[in-house]
Structures are given as structure tokens and as C-alpha cells.
């Protein structure tokens, strides 16, 4: 009959392997946590960028189509996209329109006109 290997692992070997695995798992979780945090942050930033671009385009197109005087505080953005015109100034051939976004951040549109 074949002789069995009954050596197994010693306590020292077991402790060392546990220590190594713990260190590896610790680093892995740390990385995972950092990536998760970065992902949420960048997702928010990207969304802000997209919203800002969209709001500026809407207001710009609105002025081109209906004129600066028709620009009112509540009727510019469509219902599915929340943004409001906070203030508008027409001085020295420049329209300055401040738009408030859904996240309460403001973005300013400058538009030249003859």
C-alpha cells in the first residue's frame, strides 16, 4: 500500500500564510474602496458637465430662436430637465444670462450680439 504523506502544515506556516493573505486582502479592499469613491465622484462631475452643457445649449438656442427679450425665468428649460434663468443682463453688445442648475450651481452664458 502506498505510504500516505501525513506531514500537513505546521502552525508557523499557517500563521505566515494567514498574515500574507490578510495583507493582500487589506490592500485589495483599500484599492476597491478608492476606486468606488473615485467612480462616484467622477460620475457626479460628468453629470454636472453634461447638465451644464445642455443648459447652455438650450438657453443659447432659445435666444437665437425667440430673442433675448422673450427669455423668462421659468419657461426656458423643458420639464424633464430642471434649470432656471436666474438673471439676464444686456450690456455693450453682450447678453449675460445666469442659469441655475438642479444642483443649485450657477452657470453663466455670455453671448455676443450686434
Amino acid at each position, binding site marked *: 500500500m502506498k505510504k500516505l504523506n501525513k506531514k500537513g502544515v505546521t502552525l508557523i506556516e499557517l500563521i505566515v500564510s494567514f498574515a500574507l493573505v490578510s495583507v493582500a486582502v487589506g490592500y485589495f479592499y483599500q484599492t476597491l474602496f478608492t476606486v468606488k469613491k*473615485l467612480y462616484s465622484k467622477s460620475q457626479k462631475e*460628468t453629470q454636472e458637465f453634461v447638465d451644464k452643457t445642455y443648459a447652455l445649449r438650450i438657453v*443659447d438656442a432659445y435666444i437665437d430662436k425667440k430673442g433675448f427679450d422673450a427669455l423668462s425665468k421659468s419657461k426656458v428649460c423643458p420639464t424633464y430637465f430642471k434649470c432656471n434663468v436666474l438673471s439676464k443682463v444686456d450690456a*455693450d453688445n453682450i447678453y449675460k444670462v445666469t442659469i441655475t442648475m438642479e444642483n443649485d450651481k450657477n452657470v*453663466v452664458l*455670455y453671448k455676443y450680439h450686434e
Partner: protein
Amino acid sequence: MKNNNKGFFLAETIVVIALVTTVMAFVYPNVSKLYENYKNKALYYDQPEDLYVLKAYSEILKTDIENKTKVGDAIGCKNFIVNEKTTLLDNSSKNGLPRITLYITGYMTEVSDTDYNFNKYLKRLKKTTYDSASYRLIGKFGTRYASIKIDNPNPNRNCNLGG
């Protein structure tokens, strides 16, 4: 059956560690740059509100730029090719627009600046856009940078891109 109790040689272990370290050394700088590049793109480069400001500037300055008598030698051929701030455009504050520093550059120009971050933006611009016939109006909005393509600022000039 005879067991193999040898395990690893020290030399083998060292070789493996050296290989892994080499791979990590190459991978880490590239991965760490990813977020920095993303952050620049999302927060500091070509923000939509800045592009609208540049558009307004380009429309205001179009007449001034084309009219040499108005701005004199400051907008000579050289200043459009070499990336220099013109007297007219430096720290412009026209018609209630935000006060920014403007540059006009021919695309083929080797643009560079002493400001490290701005230089990075210019290099990226050179890498990511290709239109040999176009000019760009570049604006520095503090720590943010933006640029738009513009028409040849002086159609009558007789020098070529790149000097």
C-alpha cells in the same frame, strides 16, 4: 514515493520579485495618470461656459483683428504664428466679458508656455486636434483653459503656417 521537499531557491524568488516589480513600475505611472487626465478634461479643459466666452470674444475681435490700422504692428504676421500675446488681446476685458488672457495661434505652431499646466493643455491640444489650415483662439481662465477654432485672423497676410 519520495517527496519533493526542496521548495523555491532564493534566486528563483528574487527573480520573480524583480519581474513583478518591473511590471508594477511600468503599470503604475500609466494608471495613476488616468484619473489626472480625466480630472483635467472634466473640470479644467474646454468647459462649455468658457467656450461661449471665447466665441463671444472671437466675434468681437474679428473686426479688430482684420483691421490692421486699428491695432497696428501688434497683430503682425509673426504674432499670429508664434504663440505670443498681442497687445490687443492681452488681459482683454471687453464689453463686460470676463477678464482672461487670450492667445491666437496657428495650428502648426510649436506652442509652449512657461506655465506648466497651460503647457500641458497646449500639448494635449496639439495631440488631439488636427487641422493644418486652422487657427485657434486660446483662453486662460485662471486655472481653466479653453480653445476654439477660428477663421484665419488676417486673410491678406502672406506668410505660411509655422513661419
